[in-house]
């Protein structure tokens, strides 16, 4: 049921990669997952053609502005998790998808420009929260970070986000060869050939910790909304 929307009006920040990492990890844990690829580039649709997606996972493409909400509604009634990937522009599908989101994940690289565009998304979320009189949980995740060090830029952006009261994932998706190779081989991280992909176990651990944190956040959100009525 939870609808997880990956929204960031800047391109090239790892939206599709993080959406895919989450989706394949959830499917690996036995969940039914529907991925709605609403980015006209349809990289996730392309990915699904490389190799049969994991059991329980379905990928939908050809999503129009008028059709996106029907797709989300249909799939949330059918699958345990719905993941929506969107184009990295300021587009109407983002604002529409947010209206259905149980959690909005905003990926950013460790750069000020990425943070500025993330702020655009967060302002939109806050306006929709006011319109719907309903909390739309959202959090920023750092992507393409170094597993070894936290750069000065990353620390600066982190401070900016903290000052603005923005939630940030503890997990970060590191710049790992395995995440790029997903789009060459198809399948999930665990399906990648260990002998061809550098440091695969570290990437698996990274993917797992991100997915686990998403699940944890979704459980907290659900418990809070149940407690709040």
């Amino acid at each position, binding site marked *: 049921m939870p609808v997880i929307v990956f929204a960031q009006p800047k391109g090239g920040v790892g939206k599709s990669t993080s959406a895919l990492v989450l989706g394949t990890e959830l499917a690996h844990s036995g969940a039914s997952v529907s991925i709605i690829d609403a980015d006209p580039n349809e990289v996730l649709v392309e990915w699904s053609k490389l190799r049969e997606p994991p059991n329980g996972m379905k990928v939908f493409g050809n999503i129009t502005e008028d059709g996106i909400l029907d797709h989300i509604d249909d799939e949330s009634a059918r*699958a345990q998790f719905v993941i929506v990937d969107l184009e990295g522009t*300021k587009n109407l599908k983002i604002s529409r998808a947010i209206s259905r989101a149980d959690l909005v994940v905003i990926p950013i690289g460790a750069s000020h420009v990425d943070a500025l565009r993330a702020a655009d998304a967060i302002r*939109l979320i806050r306006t929709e929260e006011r319109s719907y009189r309903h909390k739309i949980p959202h959090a920023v995740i750092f992507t393409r970070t170094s597993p070894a060090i936290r750069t000065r830029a990353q620390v600066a952006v982190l401070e900016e986000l903290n000052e603005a009261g923005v939630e940030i994932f503890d997990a970060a998706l590191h710049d790992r060869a395995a995440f790029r190779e997903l789009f060459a081989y198809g399948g999930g991280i665990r399906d990648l050939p260990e002998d061809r992909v550098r440091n695969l176990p570290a990437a698996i651990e990274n993917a797992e910790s991100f997915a686990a944190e998403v*699940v944890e956040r979704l459980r907290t959100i659900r418990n809070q909304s149940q407690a709040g009525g």
Partner: protein
Amino acid sequence: MSKRGKLGLGGLDDFEPKQSERRDTAAADQAGEAHGFKSREPARKERPIRRRSKSAFNAQINIRGREEDIELFQAIADERGIAYGRLFQEMCSQLQADDSKS
């Protein structure tokens, strides 16, 4: 509660498919508009109905003739202020009528 880093197979059964709450799309669109999140799809315009000319003058022939005859033909059309097609029609009709008289 799941432990960080361990999703565990079959550990997600507490998430069930459920109809998401439908909310008014107009509010999302307005919020989007206010922050510059705009439609990226070409506006669907009503296709204008093409009115095809009802004119019967839509066939064409290419006649190789003498230059002076062509000039005369053009001059007659100009003099009468009619299109070549009309003049051609009138000439043919006239010839036919003349033939039937004789």
